[in-house]
């Protein structure tokens, strides 16, 4: 724990601003977390809670309407916000790689697998065609593609979905990045292939000492894959900490609700527990804590004031009034 973390986000905010500046959507709001080399962070949350925007913020690949308003993105001790576009391009793919939501469509139909796996090597390391190709074969072997010698010469449409996905994985690790961001990489796969792919990612992580950020809404994957979990709600990090802590004793009502909504084998409940209500409109979030309209434990204070980030343990924070040490006078319940 003495070494600085690989990635540290400090009070990071990214807002989408409409053309006239009249509507501001706080897609990422005041997010702080850190990630050690070789460990895995799961980011969970409902659709539209800012998970993908957070990932794109780290890579500085935001659409034109989005702006990083404040905060720092410290990667290996350097603030990525101060990097020029050219420097960022050298970091992307080489130090930080990303797997997109639909790896099935991530391959260019017109080029051979070898060419595509070799591309980052040629772009970033100036490798020659021959050298990059033989490295591509090794990478295909690393992601357990059988007969890589023959496969490098084939085209994406000749591959099955699971294979294409592993190839996208091979492209991601081709320049031995330090950090790999996977944005819902398994949503388009069926379950057996999902499990295979997750195992593969974990093996690659160990082998290359990769840090992984796993964006997902599948808490099962988080439990299986991750060391830490960050729960996002309406652009804010409502709870962040070790998976074991959070799964055993979730501190935030939203985390608790998420965990309760997972169906289990032998579950005698007639209906699945759903979280009542809709996620808030990020352009006009409710005052106070954004979760209060749906929170079963909402108090008067929740409607007025957003809760501060409270540390429960050294690397476990939560944003909820319930966890704030109560001052002298007792807070009125409800």
């Amino acid at each position, binding site marked *: 724990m003495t070494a600085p973390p690989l990635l540290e986000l400090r009070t990071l905010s990214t807002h989408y601003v409409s053309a006239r500046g009249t509507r501001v959507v706080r897609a990422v709001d005041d997010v702080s977390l850190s990630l050690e080399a070789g460990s895995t962070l799961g980011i969970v949350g409902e659709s539209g809670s800012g998970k993908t925007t957070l990932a794109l913020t780290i890579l500085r*690949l935001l659409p034109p309407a989005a702006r990083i308003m404040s905060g720092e993105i410290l990667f290996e001790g350097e603030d990525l916000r101060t990097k020029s576009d050219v420097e960022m*391009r050298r970091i992307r*793919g080489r130090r930080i790689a990303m797997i997109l939501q*639909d790896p099935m469509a*991530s391959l260019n*139909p017109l080029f051979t697998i070898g060419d595509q796996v070799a*591309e*980052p090597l040629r772009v970033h390391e100036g490798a020659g065609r021959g050298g990059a190709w033989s490295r591509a074969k090794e990478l295909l072997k690393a992601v357990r593609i059988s007969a890589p010698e023959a496969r490098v010469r084939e085209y994406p449409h000749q591959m099955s979905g699971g294979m294409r996905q592993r190839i996208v994985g091979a*492209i991601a690790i081709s320049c031995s990045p330090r950090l790999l961001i996977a944005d819902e990489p398994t949503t388009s796969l069926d379950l057996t292939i999902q499990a295979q792919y997750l195992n593969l990612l974990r093996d690659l992580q160990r082998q290359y000492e990769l840090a992984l950020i796993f964006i997902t809404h599948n808490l099962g994957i988080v439990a299986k894959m991750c060391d830490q979990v960050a729960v996002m709600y309406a652009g804010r990090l409502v709870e962040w900490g070790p998976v074991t802590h959070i799964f055993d004793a979730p501190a935030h009502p939203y985390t608790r609700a998420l965990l309760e909504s997972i169906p289990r084998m032998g579950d005698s409940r007639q209906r699945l527990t759903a979280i009542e209500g809709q996620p808030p409109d990020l352009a006009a979030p409710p005052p106070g804590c954004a979760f209060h309209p749906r929170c079963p434990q909402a108090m008067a204070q929740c409607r007025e004031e957003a809760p501060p980030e409270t540390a429960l343990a050294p690397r476990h924070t939560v944003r909820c009034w319930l966890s704030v040490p109560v001052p002298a006078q007792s807070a009125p319940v409800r």
Partner: protein
Amino acid sequence: MNGGRSATLTGAWRFASLASFRTEGFPLIATSILGVLIFVAVFADVLAPHDPEVGRLGERFRPPVWQQGGSEKFLLGTDHLGRDVLSRLIFGARISIVVGFTAVIFAGVLGTGLGILSGFLGGWVDQVVMRVTDAWLALPALTFAIFLAAVVGPSAMNIVIILGLAYWTRYARVIRGEVLSLKERDFVRLAIVAGCSKRTIMKRHILPNVLNSAIVLGTLMLGVVVVTEAALSFLGVGVPPPKPAWGLMLADGKKGMMAGYWWLTVLPGCCIMVMVLSANLLGDWLRVKLDPQLRQL
């Protein structure tokens, strides 16, 4: 569906699977006619029985061989200067094809390049290119071509440039649209995430994926360009006489129409029509063949 699409694209890209091209509705006749025209254009020197530009005044207005007064020396008759019509048609094919193809390629390179830049870079580049395109499209192509021709003067080379400048906008529009949708495809986004520069992405990921459309458009444009070239020559601002362009032959022959010298206008007219028709048939087929959405209907 995704698999089918990539299969088509790959096949077209490599042109190795030409066998699959010979299926469903392949316009054999149109392609053969174009092939023959290209063959004739290439070997015009060998095939033409006479010099197309030198006339014999003693042999003026000879009708084709099957009419009374026709001679076996001049299978398709002679014109008002006693030049052999067949030889002129043969050399005219060379002009039409050379001018047609180079103009289509010139327009294609210009339009595709600007279309890709416009679509991929967006922002002010897109605004500038598209507003220029809009303005350009507001001008009638033929009028614009006549104006340009009047400014730069007639020559085969100038005609190519003029036609290229008159028609690049069609490519730019279509290609820009394609690029806009390609840009959102994951493989392009993956290339961005992998740290490729914009130039690399345009060259390696965008260009190969729009080539199909550019080729189809080019085939369809070939007919338009050939007609425009003929029209310019007909109006006297195209290929300068005594070169045997089909449009020029029409213009020369029109005075003889009422005198019964029908072969001077009908024959070059037929040549233009057949060539344009073949190019369009082939283009239509290619369009359907290479567009997976239409193919599946």
